[in-house]
């Protein structure tokens, strides 16, 4: 038995370079030969290929011979082998789950790709791609984001296409408005003159609630983005988030994490730094499954159907926009 292993290993050392020169072969090694999906007891030289092709589709010189110096060979399909790379790195093409950001922010997460008018766009949060309403349409988007070393010269991946403005709660009561006070004083004076018992007073309108923190960016080239999510794979359509649903996300800071939808119909006040607060309604609330920098992550259920867009959280919660609101606010689809 040991003799077979030694023979296979020394043969592989002699021929691995030649095998790897064949266009389809990405890796070689010694392993038990597989037959009909089961492991046999025969040691073999295993060639990993991107795709298994019929012998007729290959030039004779590109075929892996059935045996090499008496040692049997095996061919297994493994796909393209990629280096495991941190999501804070530079990716081309860039998948969902990696660092991205407007040039004036730190860094957030590229959620996923969406479609609008037959074109492909990058989906993330307004506060990631549009600097919380401060950006101009057409502004450059960097991958990785500025905090992760992204620079305009080398990492410009897309331009801001559209964003849903976030409405912040008024920091002071609007009744301080001098114009309103003057108008009211004039109206009430008029009422007094005509002898009416009616008096007017200022009513501050409740700031409009938000449904989403969302924006899209147009890639400079379709070849710079990849329609899958790092560590999760391809998206299988969309679904509605429900109470108790198991969910997962892939984000710039904490990578792939899982959780559960613990609350629905959530109204929540979210802080945006610099004392700004925005109220969001009809949100999903999950447990601790994110950190700063994970904003913009796509949230998926067990079958890889897209249910939301992660944008906020506390020490023990993660707040998620419903994907149906994100899509309708931006006019996009999958």
């Amino acid at each position, binding site marked *: 038995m040991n003799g077979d292993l030694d023979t296979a290993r020394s043969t592989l050392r002699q021929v691995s370079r030649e095998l790897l020169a064949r266009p389809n072969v990405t890796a070689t090694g010694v392993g038990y030969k597989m037959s009909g999906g089961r492991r046999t007891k025969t040691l073999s030289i295993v060639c990993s290929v991107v795709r298994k092709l019929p012998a007729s589709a290959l030039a004779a010189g590109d075929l892996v011979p059935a045996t090499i110096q008496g040692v049997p060979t095996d061919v297994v399909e493994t796909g393209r082998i990629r280096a495991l790379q941190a999501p804070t790195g530079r990716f081309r093409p860039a998948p969902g789950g990696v660092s991205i950001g407007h040039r004036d922010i730190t860094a957030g997460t590229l959620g996923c790709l969406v479609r609008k008018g037959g074109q492909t766009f990058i989906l993330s949060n307004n506060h990631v791609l549009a600097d919380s309403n401060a950006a101009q349409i057409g502004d450059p988007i960097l991958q990785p984001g500025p905090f992760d070393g992204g620079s305009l010269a080398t990492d410009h991946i897309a331009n801001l296409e559209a964003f849903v403005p976030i409405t912040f709660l008024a920091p002071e009561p609007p009744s301080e408005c001098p114009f309103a006070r003057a108008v009211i004083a004039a109206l009430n004076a008029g009422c007094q003159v005509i002898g009416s018992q009616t008096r007017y007073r200022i009513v501050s309108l409740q700031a409009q609630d938000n449904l989403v923190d969302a924006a899209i960016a147009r890639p400079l080239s379709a070849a710079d983005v990849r329609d899958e999510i790092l560590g999760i794979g391809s998206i299988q359509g969309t679904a509605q988030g429900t109470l*108790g649903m198991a969910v997962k996300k892939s984000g710039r800071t904490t990578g792939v994490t899982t959780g559960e939808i613990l609350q*629905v*119909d959530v109204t*929540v006040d979210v*802080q945006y730094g610099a004392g700004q607060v925005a109220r969001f309604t009809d949100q999903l609330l999950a447990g601790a499954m994110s950190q700063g920098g994970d904003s913009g992550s796509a949230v998926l259920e067990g079958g890889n159907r897209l249910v939301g867009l992660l944008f*906020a*959280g506390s020490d023990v919660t993660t707040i998620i926009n419903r994907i149906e609101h994100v899509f309708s606010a931006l006019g996009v689809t999958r």
Partner: protein
Amino acid sequence: MRLLLAAVLLAAAAGACGRENMPASIQEARAKHEARLMAQPGVVSVGIGRDADGTEVIVVGLDRERPETRAALPRDLDGYRVRVQIIGSVRAR
């Protein structure tokens, strides 16, 4: 004929009363009380969750322990239990 008309009116009135007295869904109850709950000091969220026994409850989130707010919050609303939970400040990430 008059009797029939009276019967119809009575039935309609009963129907209207019935609708008014119908218990609100938990979604309706949450929405109805949302503004009042969110206005309490330290309340950062109001949602619908589940208790350990699987019952749907209205969940009020606090930024930190707030004995006065806790004491002021109702135990139930329109027949639905209210659970108070400290979730901390919620920030954009």
